[in-house]
């Protein structure tokens, strides 16, 4: 389990809600390994358990059964405090609804994980500046989320997810609230991350977005219905791949 190249791995992972007649198997005994540098897309209809899977991988929810390994360490048995510490350093989250702190500027949002991890203000500022430059938002660092477009907000969220150099980025419908142009902006950043060797697991219901990944898992009723390695996506322009190049 979780060999040297695998960043995250799960075995027999299950998450159940309710009991008896009303038992819901949100995630039903799945096995998975995600090697370092892989961009994995998880697809499926609403309610198939893909977001729950993401939450389980990031330690936001506790599994009902099975094991979760992250960076070679079993994490499903960790305390809440240990899980929080793990998230600080090893996991970056990107959400469909952005979940930025509304009263903080873009830069202050990106600085937050560094400060929570005990980093100095100077260090937080330096890293936030670097990340905002990387996502093309240097000129918007002082803007509040409400002053940014949806795409810009999501880019801030990506910068925030990356600021502590995590082992893995978990993105839950990262383009679900974005228009086509903003979707392209975000996917370009993901592409850059993959090129830089960042491991990324992305939940989406958009086939075009899923097609940009290295690997695609389809989920249905809490189980993996299909696990496909996509070839040739790197050679094409993203816009062409998702039909935006005209």
């Amino acid at each position: 389990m979780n060999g040297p190249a695998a960043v995250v791995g799960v075995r027999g992972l299950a998450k159940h809600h309710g009991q008896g007649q009303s038992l819901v198997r949100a995630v039903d005994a799945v096995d998975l390994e995600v090697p370092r540098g892989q961009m994995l897309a998880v697809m499926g209809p609403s309610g198939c358990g893909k977001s729950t899977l993401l939450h389980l991988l990031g330690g936001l929810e506790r599994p009902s059964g099975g094991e979760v390994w992250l960076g070679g360490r079993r994490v499903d048995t960790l305390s809440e405090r240990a899980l929080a510490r793990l998230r600080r350093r090893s996991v970056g989250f990107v959400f469909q609804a952005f979940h930025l702190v509304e009263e903080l500027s873009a830069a202050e949002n990106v600085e937050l994980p560094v400060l929570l991890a005990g980093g100095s203000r100077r260090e937080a500022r330096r890293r936030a500046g670097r990340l905002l430059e990387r996502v093309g938002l240097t000129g918007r660092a002082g803007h509040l989320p409400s002053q940014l477009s949806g795409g810009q907000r999501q880019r801030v969220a990506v910068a925030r997810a990356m600021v502590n150099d995590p082992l893995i980025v978990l993105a839950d419908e990262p383009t679900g609230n974005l228009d086509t142009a903003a979707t392209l902006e975000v996917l370009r950043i993901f592409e850059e991350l993959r090129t830089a060797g960042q491991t990324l697991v992305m939940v989406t219901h958009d086939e075009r977005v899923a097609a940009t990944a290295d690997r695609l898992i389809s989920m249905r009723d809490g189980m993996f219905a299909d696990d496909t390695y996509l070839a040739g996506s790197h050679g094409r322009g993203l816009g062409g791949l998702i039909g935006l190049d005209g």
Partner: protein
Amino acid sequence: MGAVVLVARLVLAGVRRRRAQAVMLVLAVAVATATMASGLSLRGVSDALYERTRAATAGPDVVVLSGESGPAVTRALASLADDPDVVAHHGPYRVVHAGLTARGRTSNVVVHGFGEKPGAVNRPLVTSGRWVRPGGAVLERGFAAALGAGVGDRVAIGGRSYPVVGIAVAAATSVYPWGAQIGPGGGPVDYSGLAWMTRSDARDLASSRDLPVTTAVDLKLRDPAATGAFREAHRELPLVAHFHSWQFTAEQDMAILRNSLPILVVGSWLLSFLAVTGVAALAAGRAVEQTRRAGLLKAVGAGPGLIAVVLLTEYLALALAGDVLGLVVARLAAPLIASPTASRIGEAAGPGGVTVAAATALAVAVAVLSALRPTLRALRTATVTALGATARQPRHRPWLAAWSALLPAPLLLGLRLTARRPGRAVLQACATATTVMGIVALLTLYAQPERGYGLDGSSVLPNLRGEHDRRLMLAVTVLLIVLAVVNTITFTWTTAMAARSNLAIARTLGATPGQVSAGLSAAQLLSSVPGAVVGVPLGTGLLSLFAAGNAADPPSSWLLGAVVATLVATAALTALPTRLAARRPVAQTLSAESA
């Protein structure tokens, strides 16, 4: 009629939906109005008890006292009974000033020499045992209660031993410990109890020990209200005489309650303030829901007037229910509060019209102040905006974000949480300051030096007035603390709920439950620290308005201890709600916020 039914239905639905808030408003108002009504009822209750005792004991309209004794004094005082305005009299009689020891406690006592058969005026009412007989003494009930003496005990008066044959009350003298109305020679008096003996026993007691004796006569006037005129008519008596009217004695009864009125009335103001802050904090926590409800009513055709009536009626109905409850509590507590000695008999009457009106005005003020903001917000918000109302966006404060970045994670979270809702932080600070003011007042009362009621100020008999003041202040302070505890938990919980999204985000970014919990506690403490510090001078200042000029200040260490204890208690109180808030499932919170 239809509109009334609609308002009633909406008010009931509102109360059902916000039960915790409703219960809190009712109880907070009840506490405040009970305290105020008790304070304002003091004089009425005291007067009623005096009147009842006076009626039951044929209390005199005037007691004329001379600091001397002897045939000439007796003749001069007896001549007063010949005045055509006097319809009945008792005496003149000896008043022997001695020391009394019972159960190892010694006190000053004045012994009245009375006949074995009660006279027409000043007939003490025996509440246990029997009236005086040769060789036996009767103790005034308030005095006996303080001594812990009862019928069958033996007491030493002027060194001679007497059995206590009865316990009685009388309206001719003030309540214990002011049984001696004048001192020997007409001089000042010390705290004294009152006892009765037969005339011959009193004479023997005085002569055997050469004890100071004064003389008194009790008079019943044709017009009991004309005591002043009677006194003026007898200015030319051939001796120095002191005229104590029944009005004077009734007024003297209030001496033991001198500090009770400000303690209760000012206490009720502080309690009302805490009631308003607590309910306002709860209402603020539900502002979005309230605004959406108003939007819904507007959407189905309700006008601003109806919405205002519904919201205000809801608060008013609850406040008036609390008012009624408070008045009932005040009625039940009145005898305990208004009669700290056992010197008077009778049931205390209920709060009078003025008291009821004042308490109701207080309840209405609490309701209006609590309802004002949600009502105005609901009225001002456009229908469509109200239907989709979300929490007001906190302001961006770059300086605060920069400054807090220098702090450890819990303080960083706490400071930013405080800054999100500065109004709530100010309310929390004011509530803390109010509580500390009460604690400072209590400590100040405990710091006052006081003379006991025993011989020469000995504390073998405690100072009843001081004890009563401290008991009342303790009760008010406990009520303040109880409301403050509820408020602190409410403030913490509403802060946590208002910031649940941000706290969930912080959790996804790696904040531990402990850091989130500590951050929430820090937010409350950051508001409470200035409140606690400011509460000390405010409490001292408020007390100075009522305290005697020579009142002692409590030691600084006590005040510092009060501030520290308040802050420690605040931190401890926030522990449970913050832990609960920190353990809310992150994924569930974020999903709910996204929906």
